[in-house]
């Protein structure tokens, strides 16, 4: 009953064209069709935030979007946060330096949410950071190092501008 639908998506600036069945989520499209496995499948029902991506400029959960809905849109995944040569970007480096990862499963979503925050607020308060990652669940760290990492990244990004 379900025909495939041709879609055209810009992922981290690269144009990707493929055919998808309607029931494929954007999350599965990114992982299995586009090969962008940095985006993690966590709860797959919109609760944990591990699958967060930037969709047309805004952070969203890729498990709660259909791939067909991304037709003609731009998506930025966690892979888009690294430098052009593939080395970790400022935010990723801050996560490493602040020991923000334990198992690391939630981190792609955390990075994407933190990136969205820093893009609109260069000097976020503690409350701003808590609000920004409020939709991302981490079961290891207790969030303290993650918050510190985002503060560290904010400081480094501001210094880089001066």
């Amino acid at each position, binding site marked *: 009953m379900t025909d495939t639908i041709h879609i055209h998506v810009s992922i981290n600036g690269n144009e990707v064209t493929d055919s998808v069945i309607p029931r494929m*989520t954007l999350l599965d499209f990114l992982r299995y069709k586009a090969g962008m496995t940095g985006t993690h499948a966590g709860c797959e*029902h*919109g609760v944990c935030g591990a699958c967060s991506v930037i969709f047309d400029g805004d952070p*969203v*959960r890729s498990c*709660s979007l*259909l791939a067909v809905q991304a037709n003609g849109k731009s998506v930025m995944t966690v892979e888009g946060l690294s430098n052009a040569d593939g080395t970790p970007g400022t935010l990723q480096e801050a996560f490493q330096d602040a020991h923000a990862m334990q198992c690391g499963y939630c981190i792609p979503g955390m990075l994407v949410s933190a990136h969205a925050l820093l893009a609109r607020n260069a000097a976020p308060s503690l409350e701003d950071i808590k609000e920004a990652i409020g939709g991302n669940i981490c079961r290891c760290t207790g969030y303290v190092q993650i918050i510190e990492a985002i503060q560290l990244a904010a400081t480094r990004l501001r210094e880089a501008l001066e």
Partner: protein
Amino acid sequence: MKPAPFNYALAKSIDEATSYLADGNGEAIVLAGGQTLVPMLSMRLARPELVIDINGVDELFGIEETDASVIIKACTRQVTALNSEIVKSRVPLLHKAMHFVGHFQTRNRGTIGGSVAHSDPAAEIPLAALALDSEVELRNVNGSRRVAMADYLVGPLMTAREPDELLVAVHLPAIVPGVTTATSFHEVSERHGDFAVVAVAAQLTFDGAICTKAAVAFGGVDHTPVRIPEFETRLIGQTLAYGVPDAALDLIADGINPGSDQHASANYRRRVARTLANRAVSEAAVDARSGA
């Protein structure tokens, strides 16, 4: 967890969407923000034959105002409503409620119409809409009708919307200029952004320090968000800034029908409803007095 197969239609206009719904024989479902529907598809709690995507329907986006009301089109994102100056100044109760709705990743996609269409008994947007005496505008291929929230909310996840009808807008009465109006929204939930265990939305008008009109809606404590007319009537003529009289608060327990689940017992919900109602009403009264 993958959805069962379905067909997909991208509607470009309201007419196109309603004609897909008419052809769907009740087996079609409308996709707005997808923050509830796509998880329901993934968990196979929903197994429609056809998913009608309305994200391409320009006429379903935006916030309009008239002299008496604010009209929020169905596909307006929750983040847009949260940041809207019109909503903040003319339907401040909804503005306050929006702070409790999900997280910013979900508000970026989630819609006002989607929340009202789904009508979870613990969701904040239908609760605020009920407190405001809002109306839901529904349309099918034959025409449109407007239904008062009180009649629209039928049961848990059940509404007066017929299977062939599309929810196109929510009409929210604006506060009346020159009348002292105060609002308050309080909620207890397990984590910020979760559905409410109990939530209370209150809008009161005052003449000096005296309450002249009261609307208080309760969420999470019945099959739908509910109002308790006896309770509201008891607030009129009172000052309320030092708390709601016990005689009024005593009317709440009989006006709600909470259930017990893994989140809270029915008795706990009754007590929280009473506490939050007292808090919301007296906060509104204090705000009205201080001109806030």
